[in-house]
C-alpha cells in the first residue's frame, strides 16, 4: 500500500458549530491503482485528499504514506515527504507566471535541495512525458489552458513521486483535452504510482480502477472493475 487511511475522522469547529467532514473512512491505494473519489459538494472529498497529502491532520485515525504514519512525522519530515513522494494536481494550477514551464516543474525539486542542473534535467523529462518537450522555455501566459494543465501535471509527476493526488484535474478543459489529462494520470499510475482522483464527473471517474462514493463523510459504496467486459454487451434484439 502506498496510501492508507485507517478509520479516519476529521471534524471542523466545535460545540454547536461542529462539522464532521469525514466519519470513519478506511481506504488503501496500491501501486498501479487509481482510485476515484466521487461525491457531492460537502461530502468530504477534498478533506480526504488534503489528509492523504499531509496538508491536514485527522482528528482521529491514521494516514499512512509509504508505510509512514504521517501523525508521527515532524514538520520537517512531513514537508520532505510531501516534496519527494507526493504529487498534487489541483484545479487551480498554481503555476508561477514569472517562471518558465521548465522552471515551474523543477521548482519542487530545487526547493528540496537538488542541484539546479539535475532538477532541470528531470523537469525536461517530465515535460516530455506529458508531450510538452519543446515548451520548456515558454512562460505559462504564452500557453493554452490545456498546455498549462499539462505543465501542472508534469510538476506533480516530476522526480520519483509514488503518490499522485488530483483534485478535479481537468478543470474547465474541453472534453478532448480533459481526456488527455486523464490518460497522463492513468499512464503514470500504470507505471507504478498510486493515484487518487477527486471528481464529480462520472466520465473522469471511469478512468479509475475503483470508485469510492462519499456521502456526508462516509464511504457508502465502492465500484471495482468488472471481470468480464462481455457482461456489458447486450445481445441484439
Amino acid at each position, binding site marked *: 500500500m502506498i496510501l492508507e487511511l485507517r478509520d479516519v475522522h476529521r471534524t471542523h469547529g466545535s460545540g454547536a458549530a461542529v462539522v464532521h467532514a469525514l466519519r470513519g473512512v478506511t481506504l488503501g491505494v496500491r501501486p498501479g491503482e487509481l482510485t476515484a473519489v466521487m461525491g457531492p459538494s460537502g461530502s468530504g472529498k477534498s478533506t480526504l485528499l488534503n489528509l492523504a497529502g499531509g496538508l491536514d491532520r485527522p482528528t482521529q485515525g491514521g494516514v499512512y504514506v509509504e508505510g509512514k504514519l504521517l501523525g508521527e512525522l515532524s514538520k520537517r519530515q512531513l514537508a520532505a515527504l510531501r516534496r519527494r513522494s507526493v504529487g498534487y494536481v489541483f484545479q487551480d494550477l498554481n503555476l508561477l507566471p514569472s517562471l518558465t514551464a521548465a522552471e515551474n516543474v523543477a521548482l519542487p525539486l530545487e526547493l528540496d535541495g537538488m542541484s539546479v542542473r539535475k532538477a532541470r534535467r528531470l523537469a525536461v523529462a517530465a515535460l516530455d512525458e506529458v508531450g510538452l518537450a519543446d515548451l520548456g522555455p515558454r512562460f505559462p501566459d504564452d500557453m493554452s489552458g490545456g498546455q498549462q494543465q499539462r505543465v501542472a501535471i508534469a510538476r506533480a509527476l516530476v522526480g520519483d513521486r509514488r503518490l499522485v493526488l488530483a483534485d478535479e484535474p481537468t478543470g474547465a478543459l474541453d472534453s478532448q483535452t480533459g481526456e488527455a489529462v486523464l490518460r497522463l494520470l*492513468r499512464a503514470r499510475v500504470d507505471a507504478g504510482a498510486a493515484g487518487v482522483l477527486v471528481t464529480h464527473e462520472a*466520465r473522469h*471517474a*471511469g478512468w479509475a480502477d475503483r470508485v469510492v*462514493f462519499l456521502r456526508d463523510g462516509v464511504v457508502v459504496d465502492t465500484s*471495482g*472493475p468488472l471481470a468480464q467486459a462481455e457482461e456489458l454487451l447486450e*445481445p*441484439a434484439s
Partner: protein
Amino acid sequence: MSIRHGLLALLERGPMYGYQLRAAFEESTGTTWPLNIGQVYTTLSRLERDGLVRPLPENDGGQRPYEITDPGRDELAQWFATPISRTDRPRDELAIKLALALTTPGVDVRAVVQTQRTATMRALQEYTRLKSRETETVDLPWRLVLDAMIFQAEAEIRWLDHCEASLMRFPPPPPKAVPATAPDPEHSEVTHS
C-alpha cells in the same frame, strides 16, 4: 437501431453473404452488438420479401450473396435522413423503477439509487478501459460507439445524482397505508414513523 437498416447499409458497400454480413456488422459496432447468424438470415429473408435486397447466384463455396435493390437504397437514404424518434426507444425501465420505488411501502429509494449508480459506474469504468486500451490507430466507428456508451452511462449517473439530491431536499411522504378492514393496533405507530 434496426438490424434491417444495418444490413442495408452494409450491402450498399457491395454484395455480401450471411457470414460476411455478420462479421461486418460486428466490426462496425465494435462487437458491442453481437449478432447471431440466425438473426442475419431471418432479416435477409424479410428484406427480400419486401423487395429491398435480392439474392445472387450461389458462389463456388455454396454461399449465396445478396445485393441491395433500388427500393432498398431509397429505404436506406430515408433512414439516414430521418432522426430517431424518442418514442421509438424502449421505455426507460430505470425511471419507472425509481418512480415506483417512491410509492411502494418499505422500499429504500436511496439504496435503489446507489445500487444502480455503482452498477452503472462499473460499466463506465469498463467502457473507459476498452477505450484506453485503444490506440490512435483504432477505427473511428468503434470509438464513437464506445463514446456513445460512455456518455449514456455518464448521463444516467448524473440523473441518479440529481434524484438523490432531490430526495434529500424533498423527502417523499411515507407511502399511504392500504385501508385496513379491521382496526389496526399498530396504526398510530405507522403514522409516527
